[in-house]
């Protein structure tokens, strides 16, 4: 079976997979709603930091600045979030993964379709926040040049890929351990603190900022957010885009390898 035939089959099947994914997202509305609620946490951060900035701005952030930052964070999180790790954990443990393995398409591809298909729905629900942010708060900050806009979209795609692949990687650990959600919790704590999800990274002490720029977390939230709020411009974007996509490739390779070697150990029961 040649690689090209494989690819052609994936391209042909993908639209159908997306349709199935969308149908699933609509069917499991309750789960979706819980997830939506979780990703609205930036609004709580917004309330908190607005209170802090009431008397005087924090760094460069006024109340308005915080509002723009956290609304952008909300959007980026909605567009790039993935919950693959839970899905993988559950399917590995219950054995239902075998159904996916029987299909002639790599499971990670079907998972990715499932994930991507839910994004329009999530985006529709957060559209009001997006409109408020674009029209009212930072009308000047949104990248105007097509080049900057392209970089922003590329950064969002990169952020989603990093998320997706690390979830797949952590999820694949469940092939070896009984459950990898404890490791995922550790990743989550680091993510919350170091990605700019709870606090804008530029407010961190200078000594820590160098470390943060080298870690992957920043490229999941703060980097796309900073492009869209206009803090990051020109050459800085190109450099960071390079680091981000290096992480994408690294995480992708690691995830695919971990999944492949994990599947070899997988012995399904039930299903």
């Amino acid at each position, binding site marked *: 079976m040649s690689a090209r035939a494989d690819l052609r089959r994936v391209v042909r099947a993908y639209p159908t997979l997306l349709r199935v994914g969308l149908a699933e997202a609509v069917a499991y509305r*309750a*789960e979706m709603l*819980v*997830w939506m*609620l*979780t990703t609205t*946490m930036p609004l*709580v951060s917004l*309330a*908190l*930091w607005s*209170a*802090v900035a*009431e*008397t*005087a701005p*924090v760094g460069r952030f006024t109340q308005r600045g915080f509002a723009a930052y956290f609304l952008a964070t909300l959007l980026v999180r909605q567009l790039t979030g993935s*919950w693959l790790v*839970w899905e993988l*954990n*559950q399917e590995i443990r*219950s054995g239902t993964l075998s159904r996916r393995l029987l299909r002639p398409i790599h499971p990670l591809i079907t998972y990715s379709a499932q994930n991507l298909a839910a994004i329009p729905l999530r985006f529709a629900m957060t559209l009001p926040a997006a409109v408020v942010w674009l029209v009212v708060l930072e009308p000047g900050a949104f990248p105007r040049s097509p080049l900057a806009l392209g970089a922003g979209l590329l950064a969002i795609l990169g952020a989603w890929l990093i998320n997706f692949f690390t979830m797949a990687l952590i999820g694949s650990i469940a092939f070896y351990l009984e459950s990898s*959600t404890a490791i995922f919790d*550790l990743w*989550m*704590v680091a993510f*919350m*603190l*170091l990605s700019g999800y*709870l*606090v804008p990274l530029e*407010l*961190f*002490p200078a000594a*820590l900022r160098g470390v943060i720029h080298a870690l992957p977390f920043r490229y999941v939230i703060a980097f796309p957010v900073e492009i869209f709020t206009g803090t990051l411009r020109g050459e800085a974007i190109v450099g960071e885009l390079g680091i981000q996509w290096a992480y994408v490739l690294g995480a992708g390779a690691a995830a695919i390898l971990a999944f492949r070697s994990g599947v070899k150990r997988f012995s399904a029961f039930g299903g």
Partner: protein
Amino acid sequence: MLRYLRLLALGLRISVTVGMQYRWNFVIDGVVSILWTGLGLIPLTIAFHARPAIHGWTFATALVVVGWFSLLKGILDGAINPSLLTVVDQIRQGTLDFVLLKPADAQFLVSTARFEPWKALDGLAAIGIFVWAFRLLGRAPGALDVLGSLALLACATLVLYSIWILVIAAAFWVVRLDNLAYLFSSVFDFARWPVSVFRGVLAIVFTFVIPLGIMTTYPAEALLGTLSLRTALLSTVGALGFALISRAVWSRAIGRYTSASS
């Protein structure tokens, strides 16, 4: 009653024995918990940098709230979470039957099934933070205040436990719980801030729906000696109310349990 105390002691002993087998966890958990406690302080230092007070809270008093947060997080991860998360698996696999067949209260049994003794380290981190905060304040907490705050700690634990029971009870209706648990822990993370910082809708949510106030802010105020007796009494009543509601919901939920092939 005595029987339940004996059961609790037994559960604790087993957990400690199991915990002793994984001594490396002690080191790892210790390092991780110190690291996270330290990193978790960064937002606070940023917020209070060059700013004397936010809604009446200074850096030192807000630090006391962070201390309570650490302590409660230790209780959550060490005593509440491990047991209750095993219930979810038991529901899914149908092995909850074995628990229900035992001649003791099912809620008690599932709540005391597992402890993680190493999480007590979070408690040590909390004490460190209290010491630091009161050094900054330049005084020691009064003996009565300490007693009051310990009483409120019991309320806080009760509320935390009750909310978790509600989350777990949802497992009888929906299959996947990870996202509910994740939602709760995301919200709980804001308990590191004094609840009075929030205004409007969020203030109402965090006082009545998910009472972060009862969990960390009021015990901290009690330790600082600034809590009014009225708030203390109301939060006790609130905690008991939460416990009753969660007990009722649990009973209903367990009534729906139909087992699975196992």
